[in-house]
């Protein structure tokens, strides 16, 4: 895995800004952006497809072969954005590449611009456009209207097409026009971009960190007495009164009683959780209202997640990110080693040790 020790230089070798990228190349990039998720994976998510889409532009602006390699390499960073809005990020990043910004700045800007688009895109497309168009057209389909799928496809694609091409041109122009102001304050901009980038990664750790330790350790059981009130004939009520008094601390679960071992009424909880006293009340018409108690025993579990959440919600994702950061930056871990480590943690954490070795408190970490 020697190849992974490739270090992206802080600056490109050729720092002369490249000429404006022509419309044809921009259009090629847009068409390629349709394959953004072609190599989707859980490590860097859309990075492979992102690079695939960026390649025509990168080839134009980086004539120096070493610069092209560096640029391609860092364009494989983790990225997760909305497939329908990605051209916006592409336009911005291309304008930075063209003007030979520091690689670190480009990386920070990319993750900062890409990440929030996910939520906007989901809201716009999956939660608005698709439910409305698919909702209407599926009802048409159920009625047997063959036009339904076509209407769905046409409306959906008209919206997407406009989005992809419009955003690409606009973002690229926006990026290139802002360049002069930014290059004048390069250092401050690099710093601001890194601030935003680190901030966004902190946000992603929470927003996309679903990992939680769901281990529940059995911790004895709690006893309580549940009250039940019934109306029965006086004769039957007598049989309740004759029930043996119980030792509330020791009686088996399921035992029915109306008094404790000293003959005093029990205090039990009714269905709403209110405390009531057990006993028999003669209703005067030959019937009695009997309130009796049932001893219940429910297992108590110690939920690790609850404890962790009182320390800090999303503590597990935070610790994992920090652990991996430590391994990557201080222990020369390669991305591949990180992935293998995560796989091992996942699978070992799920081992059913309770079934295999009879370790009863272990229910699996996840």
């Amino acid at each position: 895995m020697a190849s992974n020790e490739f270090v992206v230089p802080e600056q490109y070798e050729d720092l002369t800004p490249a000429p404006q990228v022509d419309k044809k190349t921009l259009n090629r990039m847009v068409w390629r952006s349709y394959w953004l998720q072609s190599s989707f994976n859980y490590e860097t998510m859309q990075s492979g497809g992102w690079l695939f889409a960026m390649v025509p532009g990168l080839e134009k602006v980086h004539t120096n072969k070493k610069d092209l390699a560096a640029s391609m390499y860092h364009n494989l960073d983790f990225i997760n954005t909305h497939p329908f809005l990605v051209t916006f990020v592409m336009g911005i990043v291309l304008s930075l590449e063209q003007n030979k910004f520091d690689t670190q700045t480009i990386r920070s800007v990319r993750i900062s611009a890409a990440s929030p688009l996910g939520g906007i895109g989901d809201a716009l497309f999956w939660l608005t456009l698709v439910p409305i168009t698919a909702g209407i057209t599926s009802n048409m389909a159920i009625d047997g209207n063959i036009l339904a799928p076509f209407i769905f496809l046409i409306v959906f694609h008209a919206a997407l097409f406009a989005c992809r091409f419009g955003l690409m041109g606009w973002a690229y122009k926006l990026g290139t026009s802002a360049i002069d102001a930014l290059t004048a304050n390069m250092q401050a901009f690099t710093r601001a971009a890194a601030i935003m980038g680190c901030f966004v990664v902190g946000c992603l750790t929470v927003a996309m960190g679903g990992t939680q330790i769901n281990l529940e350790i059995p911790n004895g059981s709690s006893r309580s007495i549940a009250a039940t009130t019934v109306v029965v004939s006086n004769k039957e009520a007598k049989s309740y009164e004759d029930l043996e008094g119980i030792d509330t601390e020791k009686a088996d679960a399921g035992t029915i009683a109306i008094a404790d071992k000293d003959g005093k009424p029990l205090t039990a909880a009714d269905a709403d959780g209110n405390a009531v006293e057990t006993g028999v009340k003669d209703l005067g018409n030959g019937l009695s209202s009997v309130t009796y108690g049932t001893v219940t025993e429910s297992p108590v579990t110690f939920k690790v997640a609850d404890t962790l959440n009182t320390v800090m919600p999303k503590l597990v994702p935070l610790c994992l990110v920090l652990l991996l950061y430590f391994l990557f930056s201080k222990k020369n871990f390669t991305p591949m080693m990180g992935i293998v480590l995560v796989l091992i943690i996942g699978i070992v954490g799920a081992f059913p040790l309770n079934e295999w070795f009879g370790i009863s408190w272990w229910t699996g970490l996840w």
Partner: protein
Amino acid sequence: MEFNFVQVILVFIVTFIAAIDQFDFTESLYQPIVTGPIIGAILGDMNTGLVVGGTYQLMTIGNMPIGGAQPPNAVIGGILAAVFACSLGMEPTAATAAAIPFALLGQYGVTLFFTLRAPLMESFRDAAIKADTKRITVLTIISEVILGLIFAVIVTLFFVAGQGVGQAVVDAIPAWLNTGLSAAGGMMRFVGFAILLKIMMNRDMWAFFLLGFALTNIVAAIPDLSSPTLLIMALIGFGIAFWDFQQQTELKGAIADGGDMSDGI
């Protein structure tokens, strides 16, 4: 019901295309409302396919691939629902329900596939280091073809083998392995995050990482804000970064101007 060779091949091709399309290109051809009538036409009953497609589509509206979560797989589910309805004569709703175990199987499969595809990024990195843009294209195509083939083979097998098989396969996977793999899948993004941090982080930046972490915890805990969380956070982050940018540049300007602050009052 017996299927002829041409039908099997056509179902294979449709699934191959739909499997790729579910994540790329049009991201809509795979929707059951489209695959339903196509499968119906292949099996000689387009109208039933259309109705099943519509029925399945309505069910999936609440199950969109939002925020990277994998819903029960609509490609496998939609296609097999149409197959069941057209070939076994099941009612559209029953066919939809019968297809659910297969859709779940597809969901597991996709999660597993996305986890196991991570090593492919090594090949991408190798190609990048050599500035080999052609190789990126080749890898992208290979990646897509593998995805399409896996889906097409699985669906075709179920198509030929029939309905009971889906449940049997779902039952055969040990629950713990499935849990472990999806947990690992959920954690893999942290590898990506950590690499990004390694690039951007220096001593000054830890506070901003933690600030983002803490503020997002607050916003994420408010149910009304859970959907636009990242946008809200990006605006806050932008505000902080912009403020810092102004501080840095004004400081520089102030020195150049001989200490005259810029507001001019």
